């Protein structure tokens, strides 16, 4: 099952979400692969590694996936990225069947879940990620500009679907959620009205999230008790947070 984490708007929490959910899946004994499609290469830093040209070696040098991946945690492998990822885009642009190159490369892998961390752009690599994906997770801040990014991704998905690709679904994940502001409520009401059940429980804004990357740790390692993981506690009930989102992801993987 391949998940793409996409939003053309930057700074909405795509990388943090991909890292946290990938590590969460790995902790649930799911064999997971995380792929960095962003030339910024931040996935490697999130696990305390140096950036490297994993994706470039996979696509441009034709090295097998098994030799390119780095094992970053138990059950969790990573294909890193760096500025060489820009060359990958050029190579793909010149290739035949260029839209499905990534999909073909991942098709033979035997992971329970593959998570693609996409760059905030709309280029050939982004398109490859969306075509490879079975399910698209769209992290978004609850502001008008970010929600416009959601609509853009959904338009692109609709175009891809018209050319024959079948998505199993998509989810919208509100991030940096601050339930005390009126603007959050207005935008939350709007996206739930428009997208209904496709809206997953939000991830509360939490300074712990910003600190994790600096320590090269995931949220589960650095701050498992944080609001970003556990969500809001109301009437002994946890609402939102990555733990609940992980549950939704597992339901998708297990076909629940």
């Amino acid at each position: 099952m391949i998940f793409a984490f996409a939003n053309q708007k930057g700074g909405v929490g795509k990388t943090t979400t991909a890292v946290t959910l990938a590590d969460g899946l790995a902790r649930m004994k799911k064999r997971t692969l995380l792929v960095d499609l962003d030339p910024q290469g931040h996935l490697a830093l999130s696990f305390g590694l140096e950036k490297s040209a994993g994706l470039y070696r996979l696509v441009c040098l034709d090295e097998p996936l098994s030799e390119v991946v780095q094992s970053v945690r138990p059950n969790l492998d990573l294909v890193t990225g760096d500025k060489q990822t820009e060359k990958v885009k050029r190579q793909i642009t010149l290739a035949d069947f260029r839209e499905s190159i990534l999909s073909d490369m991942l098709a033979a892998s035997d992971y329970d879940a593959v998570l693609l961390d996409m760059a905030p752009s709309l280029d050939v690599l982004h398109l490859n990620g969306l075509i490879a994906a079975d399910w698209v997770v769209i992290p978004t801040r609850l502001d008008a500009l970010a929600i416009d990014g959601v609509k853009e991704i959904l338009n692109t998905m609709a175009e891809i679907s018209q050319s024959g690709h079948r998505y199993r679904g998509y989810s919208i994940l509100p991030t940096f959620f601050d339930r005390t502001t009126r603007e959050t409520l207005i935008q939350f009401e709007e996206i739930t009205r428009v997208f209904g059940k496709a809206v997953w429980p939000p991830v509360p804004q939490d300074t712990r999230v910003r600190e994790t990357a600096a320590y090269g740790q995931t949220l589960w390692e650095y701050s498992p008790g944080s609001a970003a993981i556990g969500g809001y506690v109301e009437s002994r009930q946890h609402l939102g947070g990555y733990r609940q989102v992980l549950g939704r992801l597992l339901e998708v993987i297990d076909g629940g």
Partner: protein
Amino acid sequence: MVDEKKARRTTLDPAVADLLEGMQQRQAEAQMPKSERERLARERAKIQARRDQRATYDLPPAIREGIRVLAEELHLPASQLATLALARFLIDYQNGSVELAQYKQPSRSPRYDWNLIFPDELIMTLARKKKG
């Protein structure tokens, strides 16, 4: 007539629906006069405090009914009678005057090692007294 608000909510993720409802409630309260907001805050605090005093146990209907009938007879809250009954039991148990061994049977549940199997007469006595 269909309640539109509720009909819409059924299409949402349950956690999203609960969170949204809480936020809308808080927003509505923020528009209220100060005295009304304070009244609601006091009510919430009362409910919160009461929540820590609540527990849910599975009880044979005869016991639940026995407590209810006695509470009515004595014009007392049933919760207070149940509190007294449980407090007496805990004290008796700590004094060693309650023996559980006679009721214990191995449990097949992964959560528990034992079940307490009560003889029918223990419960039937209550039921007979209730009828009498």
